[in-house]
């Protein structure tokens, strides 16, 4: 594998690409807004410009910007959660949805939709995620320990059970099931600014916690026993990781619906690029995940405008081949994956 030596340069360029992607994608849309105008609007809080087009300003600041910020948050959250779950479960197939938290959020949201509580849907979804997390945690807990195997089993079974509950709800709802289907397909389009701020805070805290545990994550990968030998309080770390990763997943899923593939492919892609060290991996995944989701969302909303493709379709369509391409191109990297 071509190791990227200069990590600082790598992250700087990622940040640069993120900013670049954000500014390009913010000027793409059905309303053709000149770049000059876009820049003016974005800077209008710092510099006082005269004569800013109000319509443009609203579209940029209140429609496109929240959406792009949500894409950044979601991409970062799902990727980092993916990294955490892959390490925690020591399983390369793990993704943020593997432990059923997302299914809990989806069931909560479905109930909200079925009851016609449209504006409350994200909250009910988040409550669903928390409840599921609690149940899975307690199911997996054996004494004071949480064995990885039981956690994985409890999570997968719980997820399957909740998914079947959603199907039941959909068939009971009859003609109304399409609403739940729409929600499940995932979209970044309808989130209000306040919700985004709440989710941003949650996700930021979650990522900081996970990042601060990156040394422990590295050690866990060596095996729980060696971790204990190295003086890491493995159970506590696992609990913290489980809770924070589940929290950020639940928070994001409850407002965007299920956006697949991001949590799986981004960590692996980043690992192929800069190696398995978690401090780098978490930061890199967050940045790459954000960039990826911004691009995917821009494609989703523009490619068959005025219609929108569910963003999950784009992430899968673009993500899977790209991941495979990386895999084939840099076969050496397989060693890193197999080193779990």
């Amino acid at each position, binding site marked *: 594998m071509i190791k990227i030596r200069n990590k600082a340069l790598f992250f700087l360029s990622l940040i640069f690409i993120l900013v670049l992607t954000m500014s390009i994608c913010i000027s793409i849309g059905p309303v053709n807004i000149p770049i000059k105008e876009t820049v003016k609007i974005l800077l209008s809080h710092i510099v006082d410009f005269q004569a800013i087009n109000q319509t443009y300003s*609203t579209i940029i600041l209140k*429609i496109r910007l929240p959406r792009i910020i949500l894409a950044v948050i979601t991409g970062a959250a799902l990727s980092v959660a993916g990294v955490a779950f892959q390490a925690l479960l020591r399983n390369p197939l793990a993704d943020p949805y593997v432990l059923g938290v997302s299914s809990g959020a989806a069931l909560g949201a479905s109930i909200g939709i079925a009851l016609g509580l449209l504006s409350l849907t994200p909250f009910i979804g988040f409550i669903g995620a928390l409840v599921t997390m609690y149940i899975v945690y307690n199911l997996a807990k054996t004494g004071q320990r949480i064995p990885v195997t039981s956690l994985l089993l409890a999570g997968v079974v719980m997820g399957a059970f909740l998914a079947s509950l959603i199907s039941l709800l959909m068939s009971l709802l009859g003609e109304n099931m399409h609403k739940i289907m729409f929600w499940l397909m995932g979209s970044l389009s309808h989130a209000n600014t306040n919700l985004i701020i709440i989710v941003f805070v949650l996700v930021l805290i979650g990522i900081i916690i996970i990042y601060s545990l990156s040394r422990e994550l590295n050690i866990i990968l060596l095996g729980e026993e060696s971790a204990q030998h190295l003086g890491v309080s493995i159970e506590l770390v696992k609990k913290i990781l489980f809770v924070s990763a589940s929290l950020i997943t639940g928070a994001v899923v409850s407002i965007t619906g299920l956006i697949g593939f991001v949590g799986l492919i981004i960590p692996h892609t980043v690992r192929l690029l800069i190696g398995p060290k978690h401090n780098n991996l978490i930061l890199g995944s967050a940045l790459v995940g954000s960039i990826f989701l911004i691009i995917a969302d821009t494609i989703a909303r523009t490619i068959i405008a005025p219609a929108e493709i569910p963003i999950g379709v784009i992430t899968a369509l673009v993500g899977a081949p790209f991941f495979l391409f990386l895999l084939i191109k840099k076969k050496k990297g397989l060693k890193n994956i197999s080193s779990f």
Partner: protein
Amino acid sequence: MKRIFLFIAMFLISILSVNAYPERIVSIAPSNTEILFALGLGDNIVGVTDYCDYPEEARDKPKVGDFSNPSIETIVSLNPDIVFAVAGVQMPIVENLRNLNITVYQVDISSIDDILTEIQNIGDVTGKTNEAEALVSGLRNRINVVEEKTRALSENEKPKVYIEVWTYWTAGKNTFAYDLIEKAGGKNVFDVEQSWFLTNAENVINANPDVILLAYHGVYVDPQEIKSREGFEFINAVQNNKVYNIDSDAVVRAGPRIVDSLEEMALILHPGIMNSFLIEPTTLTLEGDLNNAVSGTIEITNTGIADDEISISTNIDSKYDVSFSQDSFSLNKGKSKSITVTAFIPEDEEIKTKLLGTIYLTGKDYSNSLLLYLSPNNNLRIEDIDAYLDGKKESKIDEEGGKIDNVLPGSTIKLIIKINNDYEEDVEIEDILVTGTLIDINDKDLEEESDEFDLKPGKSETITLTFDIPLNVEEDNYELDINVEGEDNNGVEYLSSVKLKIEVEKEKNKVIIQSTKINPESISCQRNIKVYNKIINIGRTDEDVKLLIQNSELGIDLEKNIEIEEDKSVETDFSLDLRDDIPNGKYNLDVTIFYKDNQKTDKKILDLSIDNCVEKTNSNNKENNNEKVLAQNQIKSEDIQNPKEKITAQIIQPITEKNSKSARIRGVLLYILFGLIFVVLVCLLILAIILTRRK
């Protein structure tokens, strides 16, 4: 294809059951259930799907499962004579049922027109042909009414519509909703080949709909929620508060209720057009005597697609006391109502038809109005007019007016006008004056007036006005206004007027001797007389005129050739010296002109008396004085009447050839002289310049 299915279905029905028509019916689509109930087959339905919730009775029918996956077992157990399914998505179920020897009719609907066709087909299959025909024609009429009203709309008048069935899910071209919006006179903002699809806020803002329709399934959405979406404040529909909920089932289901939806949408998109009513007549004129109440009737017809509440108001001055038999009333669609409008004519009202104001009829979404005119009876009336042109009666003239053709310069028009006081009692009309004005003849009006007279109630008076058309009139159409004015003993003024048309046409060739005069008219010792002639060309061509003055007894035979242009006159005079041996007596001098190559002529005769040579000096002086005065008078009057013509006539004074030749030579000499002087002056100037330069 559908026809074949229909045929097969009918065939199967006819062989499978003794009774020709199915008695036990199962519907496995909500739309079919609605159609079957609408055809009055409710009692025959033995099974429906879980989603069949309309009409209310459908909920109580046995359920056979959901739309996409009904229970075949349950259907079989219901022992149906026929099952109504839909084409396409239900094909696998249909196959299954057919394999079980169950008759299935597949309803195939992909447009609004298909709904009507299939209703008829279902009616035919179930023996409800007549009911189906009635239902279909009723629905078609309602669709036609809406379409007729929207047909006249231009593209700009069609509002842009965004329909939402779920957060940002909207209709593409392959949906009933799209067709409905088109038919209801709107334009779907998204013109894409899709059925329902997901869009986003920016697309909607970009499309800027004029109307937003919310057809959320089974949910009422607070329009405020939609309006408060980020960026939606720039959308016309939000700014103009045009966000509406509509019944989603009626939009989506291919049943008879689709027409309800169409009307609902049409009312939202074009309330003012869909909810209209007609007022007949559009202007109402009330006629009657002064100081009396008058009334008339208007008829209002609701031509809209909904019932309406109409109230009547007016902006007319309260002194007319306008009132209506009903100020407000409800008017169901298709119904008419007559309203009596009553007004009072004040005694001081001016006698002429006058616009009083507007009567407004205001419905829920539509308003219409009519104009109210008041026409007090004009009791000073022109009862009859007879016109005579040069003594001949004109048939085309009566009290309404008319036209007099072929009026020649110099013609006389006589008008005999009969004026009537139409009051039966009490009111005498006084100081009546009849005025006739022939407008703009030779740049001024020719006015004739009658004497003033009074008319007692019921009496009439005949007035004669005479107009002489001037000789020098231009060919044209002229207007002759006749006004009859008067005032009654209450101070009310009356005015009646009639306009006549006068068409003046000239003959092609016409020259007349306008005047001829001899001076002095009697002579004694003196033997010199003068004859003055004025000849005018009133035809349409220039003429060469030969003027002759003749008397064989006196031995006078003078001739002069004159050229007279169209519309011009020429004055010419002759000096005659009579022989001394002429006996005293009266003589006639013939003044004759020939024109148009001597084909046409005009003649006047002058009298000349020759007396004894006794009172010679006296009479001579007197005659001379007279002559001068006369001549001066003539010139003066002509100056006033026609100064231009005078000048031209003088210029065209005939001159002999000799005269003209010498005049020409004189002119040439004058030019040469001036030329020479000019050359000399120039030479002097040049010389002066050269000299000053040298210095």
